[in-house]
């Protein structure tokens, strides 16, 4: 079959690779209908996560049709149109039973790497390096789905592929940031990053009752899209005084909840970016935490900061003093999608959660290298590039 594979730092190509096979009785095989780029792919693409091999298939946010099921799959049949959670979780271990699905004990076939690097192993993830199981990704014609009853969700009739696609990762990730960040009615929420996850974290905050939601970025087209489709306020950190604006818009307190939706390659104005870029290129620090620093600094006393952006290793100049002395609550997680996806699909069916505007560029899988170039360089207003393997 055709697939988009990683060939080395900043090198991807569409190649022929072996078809996936049922390997466990709870597996299914899905024919991919739509699969989309994610900002976290760029960390793999750029070689910042050193656990990729030449030939690894990229992609973890996707939707498709079941074409084969293992003998222990009970909830799905051939022909089901499903959206699949990007994280692979068994549904049976203690973490899954606590609804912390991305921490699954049984979803990662290479636990040694992350146990040594992070102390414990999270679950597996499609197309996200051998540190997270080495599972082939979704930028392909077909993909194997382990624990299919747990991770695949039938898309309701009436919800388009274009909308349901984002129930795979962006929407549950954004929702989790607002939910576990503790957003409640009356809150002021600030979200760093106006990409798909940031926009959907903002929308989740609105739906959870936040009084005011402010999204911060530097790209005018994304900020305009956020105002138009999500209906929240925006700030451009290259033009606005973020600290003064956030204080003014929160009665001088600072936002109650700050959500970081940028990750390890964040940008900023000023020398901070150069400082972090130099250290990152020298491998003295692995991640650039500019947005996380800002979120902690601007959060109100006693507030909550949730880190949604993907970080891989070590950061420098982390404001532990602000965290401790302001009594903040800091949380982070990979998405616990199985907890939210059924609810999100219902909201999509009711029109409360609209996502199709995020797929700004749709193209055949053969053009995926061009799609990643548009996405990475943010050319032509690209927010997300969507690939159709069957086109």
């Amino acid at each position, binding site marked *: 079959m055709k697939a988009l594979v990683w060939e080395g730092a900043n090198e991807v190509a569409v190649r022929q690779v072996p078809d996936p096979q049922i390997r466990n009785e709870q597996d299914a095989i899905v024919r991919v209908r739509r699969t989309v780029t994610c900002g976290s792919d760029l960390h793999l693409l750029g070689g910042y996560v050193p656990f990729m091999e030449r030939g690894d298939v990229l992609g973890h946010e996707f939707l498709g049709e079941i074409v084969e099921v293992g003998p222990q799959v009970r909830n799905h049949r051939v022909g089901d149109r499903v959206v699949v959670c990007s994280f692979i979780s068994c549904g049976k271990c203690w973490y899954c039973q606590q609804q912390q699905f991305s921490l699954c004990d049984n979803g990662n076939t290479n636990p040694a790497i992350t146990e040594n690097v992070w102390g414990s192993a999270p679950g597996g993830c499609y197309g996200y390096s*051998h540190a997270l199981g080495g599972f082939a990704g979704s930028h392909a014609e077909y993909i194997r789905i382990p624990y299919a009853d747990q991770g695949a969700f039938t898309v309701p009739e009436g919800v388009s592929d274009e909308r349901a696609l984002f129930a795979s990762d962006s929407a549950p990730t954004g929702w989790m940031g607002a939910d576990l960040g503790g957003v409640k009615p009356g809150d002021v929420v600030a979200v760093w990053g106006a990409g798909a996850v940031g926009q959907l974290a903002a929308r989740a905050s609105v739906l959870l009752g936040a009084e005011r939601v402010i999204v911060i970025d530097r790209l005018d087209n994304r900020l305009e899209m956020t105002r138009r489709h999500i209906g929240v306020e925006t700030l451009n950190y290259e033009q606005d005084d973020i600290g003064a604006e956030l204080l003014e818009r929160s009665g001088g307190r600072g936002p109650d909840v700050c959500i970081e939706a940028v990750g390890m390659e964040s940008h900023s104005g000023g020398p901070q970016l150069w400082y972090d870029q130099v250290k990152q290129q020298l491998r003295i620090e692995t991640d650039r935490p500019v947005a996380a620093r800002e979120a902690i600094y601007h959060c109100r006393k006693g507030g909550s900061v949730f880190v949604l952006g993907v970080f891989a290793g070590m950061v420098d100049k982390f404001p532990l003093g602000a965290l401790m002395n302001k009594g903040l609550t800091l949380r982070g997680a990979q998405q616990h999608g199985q907890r939210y996806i059924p609810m999100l699909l219902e909201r999509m069916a009711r029109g409360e959660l609209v996502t199709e505007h995020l797929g700004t560029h749709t193209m055949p899988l053969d053009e995926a290298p061009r799609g990643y170039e548009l996405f990475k360089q943010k050319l032509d207003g690209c927010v997300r590039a969507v690939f159709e393997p069957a086109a």
Partner: protein
Amino acid sequence: MRWLIGATAVAAGGLVIRRLRGRSGRGDGQWPPRLPGRRRPRWHVATVNRPAETIGADGRLPEPLTGLGDAVEIQVRPAAGNRGTEIAVRLRDGARLPASAAVRRAVGRDPDQAIRAALREAKQLLETSEVLHPDAPPTTESTPLNQPLQAVTRDGNREGRL
């Protein structure tokens, strides 16, 4: 700047060597600390999200554990906080020199590796009824650059902190 990179590389190398030696320099909480030398086998413990009374109820533990035979001691006990059952495994009489352990580990013949793999597989069988396999056939190809990573992932189930 080079001295910093060099120091980082030395520190990282030290960590790798220490990990390969099985963290023998960490001590075991005794005072005065034991001198480095023969290392007592430690317990490897996994918590299974199943009630204790259902594990080994028929007198048999899952095959990956029974396959370790008489070389190991196994304890099964309820986990604290109603979190299921702890299964603990250690070598029965394996007092070993750290150096020989490192060699055995490097060639994939360390009994601790077999214990880790057996514990992980037993936990998966008890919780999910199957052992999750990696994708096959692989889509990747071997290159001089990724051979170390391939070596690590070949032992992905046998290494780690368990």
